[in-house]
C-alpha cells in the first residue's frame, strides 16, 4: 500500500482537541482538591491550557512542517534527538495505557463485574489499531461523526439532572470560602498537567494540518470550548453530588447521571453515558498512540502502519499489568505520574527546547540574509 499524505482539516483539529481533553477528564473528575470551587479551578486551568497550547504551537511554528520528534533531531542532532524521542514514545504509550485503564476500570466496576480487564482492553485496542491502519485522516473523520453525540450527551446529562430536580445550587456555595489556596492546590500540578498539559501530543498532530494559517486560533478556541464543557461538568458534579460524595466517587459524572429520572421511563442513563464517554477515550488513547507511533517511525525509519498491531497489543497488555488494582492505579495517577512524568515531559523538555530552537533558527536566518 502506498504511503498516503496525511492531512486533517482545522475543523477536525478542533474536534480532536475537544474530544481529547474531555475524554477521560469528564469521566474521572478533576480539581477535587478545590472542593466546591473545582469549577473555578477548571476555568483558571483552561486559561493556562490555552497558554500551554499556544506555547507548543509557537515552538512548532518556528520550524514549519516538522513535528515534535523532528524538532528534537533538528535541535539536538541525530543521536540525542532519537534518545529523547524514545523517551517520549515510552511516555506516550504509558499514558495511553493509563487512559485505557481508566475506561476498563469504569466498565468493570459498572457493567461487566465478572469480565476480565483483558477483554475490554484488547477489544478497545483493536478498534484503535483499526483506525490507524487507515491513518490519521480516518480518526479525524470518525470524530466528526461522533462529536455531536459526545457533546450532546454531556449537555443533556446536565439538563436531565436539572429537570429531575436533583440540582442543588447551594452545594456550590460558599464560593472561594477557603480563599484561593485550595484552588491553587488543585491547579498545580494536577490540573495543568491533566488534562491541559497533555496537549503536548498535539505537537505531533499539528504538523499534519492541511491549512497552516489559523492553527493557533483554532487550537485556542478548541481548548476554550473543552474548558467550558469541563466547567459545566464540574458544576453538574458538585451541584448534584455535593463535595463529599464527589470526592469519594470514582466516576463522579456517572454517579451524578444516576440521579436522572424522567417520565418514569428515562432512568439509569448512566449506562448510556458510559458508552458515549467511550468515544472520548478512543480519541484520547488514539492520539497518544499515534504520537508514540510517529516517534517510532522516526527512530526506525519504517512506516508506522506496520507497527500498529504489535504496539497496540503491547498497550493492551500494559493496560492490564500497569497496576494491580484500581486504588493503586489512581494513587499512581495522583502521586507518581504528575511529578515524574507529566512535568518533565510536558514542561521541562519543551522549555529546554526553546533556547535551542531560537538559536538554531536565528543561525539559519543569518545564513539566509548573508547569502
Amino acid at each position, binding site marked *: *500500500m*502506498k504511503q*498516503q*499524505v496525511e492531512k486533517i*482539516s482545522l*475543523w*477536525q483539529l478542533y474536534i480532536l482537541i475537544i474530544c481529547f481533553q474531555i475524554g477521560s477528564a469528564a469521566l474521572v473528575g478533576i480539581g477535587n482538591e478545590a472542593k466546591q470551587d473545582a469549577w473555578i479551578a477548571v476555568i483558571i486551568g483552561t486559561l493556562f491550557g490555552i497558554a500551554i497550547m499556544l506555547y507548543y504551537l509557537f515552538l512548532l511554528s518556528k520550524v514549519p512542517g516538522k513535528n515534535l520528534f523532528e524538532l528534537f533531531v533538528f535541535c539536538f542532532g541525530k543521536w540525542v534527538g532519537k534518545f529523547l524521542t524514545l523517551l517520549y514514545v515510552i511516555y506516550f504509550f504509558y499514558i495511553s495505557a493509563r487512559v485505557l485503564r481508566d475506561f476498563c476500570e469504569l*466498565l468493570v466496576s459498572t*457493567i*461487566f463485574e465478572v469480565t476480565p480487564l483483558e*477483554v*475490554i482492553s484488547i*477489544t*478497545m485496542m483493536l*478498534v484503535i489499531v*483499526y*483506525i490507524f491502519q*487507515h491513518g490519521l485522516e*480516518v480518526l*479525524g*473523520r*470518525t470524530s*466528526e*461523526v*461522533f462529536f455531536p453525540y459526545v457533546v450532546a450527551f454531556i449537555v443533556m446529562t446536565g439538563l436531565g439532572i436539572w429537570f429531575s430536580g436533583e440540582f442543588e445550587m447551594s452545594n456550590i456555595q460558599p464560593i472561594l470560602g477557603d480563599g484561593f489556596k485550595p484552588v491553587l492546590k488543585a491547579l498545580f500540578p494536577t490540573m495543568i498537567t491533566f488534562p491541559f498539559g497533555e496537549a503536548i501530543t498535539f505537537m505531533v498532530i499539528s504538523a499534519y494540518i492541511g491549512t497552516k494559517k489559523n492553527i493557533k486560533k483554532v487550537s485556542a478556541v478548541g481548548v476554550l470550548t473543552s474548558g467550558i464543557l469541563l466547567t459545566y461538568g464540574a458544576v453538574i458534579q458538585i451541584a448534584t453530588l455535593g463535595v463529599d460524595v464527589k470526592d469519594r466517587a470514582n466516576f463522579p459524572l456517572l454517579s451524578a447521571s444516576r440521579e436522572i429520572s424522567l417520565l*418514569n*421511563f428515562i*432512568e*439509569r442513563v448512566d*449506562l*448510556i453515558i458510559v*458508552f458515549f464517554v*467511550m*468515544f472520548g477515550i*478512543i480519541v484520547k488513547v488514539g492520539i497518544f498512540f499515534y504520537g508514540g507511533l510517529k516517534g517510532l517511525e522516526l527512530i526506525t525509519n519504517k512506516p508506522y502502519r506496520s507497527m500498529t498491531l504489535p504496539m497496540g497489543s503491547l498497550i493492551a497488555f500494559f493496560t492490564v499489568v500497569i497496576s494491580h488494582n484500581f486504588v493503586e492505579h489512581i494513587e499512581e495517577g495522583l502521586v507518581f505520574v504528575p511529578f515524574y512524568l507529566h512535568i518533565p515531559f510536558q514542561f521541562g523538555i519543551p522549555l529546554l527546547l526553546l533556547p535551542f530552537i531560537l538559536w538554531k533558527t536565528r543561525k539559519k536566518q543569518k545564513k539566509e540574509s548573508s547569502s
Partner: protein
Amino acid sequence: MSSFSSLFTRRKNKNRGRISQKEIYDKEGIPKHFDLNLEKNLKSMQELFNQTSDYEEIEIKIGDLKGCVCYLGTTLNKSELNTHVLEPLRAAFKQPKTESHKDIDYVREAFFPAVSYKYGETLHQLVWQMLNGYAIIMLDQHNRALALNIGGTDKRSIEEPSTQTIIRGPKEGFVEDINTNIGLIRKKIKNPRLVFEEFNVGIDSNTQLKIGYMKGIVNEDILSEVRQRISKINASGILDTGNVEEFISDETFTFFPLVFNSERPDSISGNILEGKIAILLDGSPFVLIVPSVFTDFFQSTEDYYQPFFMTSFIRIIRYMSFMITLTFPSLYVAITTYHHELMPTPLLINLQSQREGVPFPAVIEILMMELTFEVLREAGVRMPRAVGQTLSIVGALVIGQAAVEAGLVSNVLVVVVAFSAIASFVSPIYNFSIAARLIRFILIIMAASLGLYGILLLLIIMVIHLVSLRSFGIPYLTPVAPFKMKDQSDIFIRVPIWGDRYRPTYLMTKAPVKTKKSPPPSAPKQDSGGKKENE
C-alpha cells in the same frame, strides 16, 4: 484541483491483461481487409456465420453491378428491411445502366435517402455493425460497404418503474434498450452540453456502454478516472450494470454500495445536472451514477416534488429507520441478556413474563426469527406469482401466531423483528438496506457476547470503515465527515428549491453555482399587484 488527482493514487494501476477487439477477430481468423472482390468478402462472411441460422444474404443487382445484402435476421425488424431496403433495390434492378450507379454514394442517395447509415471499410467494422442490427450492402469492385440502420427488434414499452416507486412525479422508467434510455434523459435535459460517450465492454459479449455527463459542469478528474476504470473492465460478459458496478467501485470488500443506481430518468437527470456521471448499459434498465456518497442513498426523487417540510421530516425518519434496522434486534438481545436495569421496571416485568415459557436464550430466539424472515423475504421475491397467496398466508400464520402460541418465541420478539424488517424497506434504494441486513447479524452476535459495549464497539468500527471508504476519490461520508457546511442544505433537511443554489461542493464541479441569487417567490404586494385585480 491538483491535489484532487492524488486521491486516486490508492487504486492499483495494473494492466489487467485486457484482450483488445482486434486480437479477438484475429483469433477467429477473419481477414481484416475488405476485398475488392465481392465473392471473397462473402466467403469470409459465410465462414464466420456458416453455422448461424439467422444469417441471411440476398443477392442484388444495381444496373449490371453485382451486390449483396447481408444481415442477421434476428437483430433487425424485417418489415422495415423490406420497405426501406429491399423495395428500393427492386426498383434499382430495373434502372438503366449508367456510370453513376457504380458510385456507392450515389446508390445510397438514390435508393435509401432517409435511412441512417455508416460506411464500413474493414470487415471487422462490418461484422460489428451487423451484430448491432445493421443491414450491410456490399457491392462488387468497391473498397467499402454501406451499413444501414434498419431499427431494432421489438423492445419493452416504457412503463412505471417497479422499484423506487413514488406517489407524485414522473412515472416513466428506463427500459432495456440503451437508445430509448438516452432519449428519456434527453427529454429531461435539452442541452447540447449533455454528452454521451460510447464504450464497449465484455470481451465476448461486446456490450454497449455509455457514460453521460454535462460538459462544462462535470469534474474532469473524476471523468477521466471513470473512463479509465471502464476501459479496464475485463470480463467475458457484462450483462447488467450490476456487473459494471463491481468492476468500477473503489472497494469490493464492503457491505455498502459505492455506486448509486436508479431506474428513474428524473433521478438520473437530476444527478447529471448536479455534475455527476451516469453509466448506461445496453440491456439494463438500471443506470449507475458516480460518484455517490452515503447520503445519496437516503434521498428519493420524490423528495423534491413534495413540500420541503415533509421531505425534511421523512429524511430524518429514513436515517432513523436505518439505525432501527441495524440495532433493534441486537439491542433486544443486549438488554434482555445483560442490561435489565436500562428498562423501566413495569416494562421489564411485562417482557420477562412473556419470555417465561420460551425455551431458548434471547440470541437463539432472535437469530431464528431473523433467519426465518430472510427466508420469507427471499421466497417472496423469487417465487412464481401464482403461489403468492400461499406464502403470505403461511408466512403470516407461521411467523405471526403459531410460533408464539407454540411457545417458541415471545410476542415482543415478533414485534422487534417485524419492526426492524419494515424499517429496512424504508431505504429508497433497495440495495442499500443490504448493508443493514448483513451487519445486523454481526451486531446480534456481538450483543450476545459483549452486550451494549459490543454493539457500540461494532458501530464505531462500522463508522471507521465508512469514513475510510471512497467513491471515485470522494470520501463516502461527505458532507458529514469531512464536514461541508455549504452542502448541508440537502442532506438531513431539504431547503426550498429556490434556496438551494449550489452544486455539491465535494464534487468540485466546474460550475459550483447552480442559479443566480433571486428573491424568494412571494405574492405581489398589496399596493401594486393586489389593487389592479380589483379594478
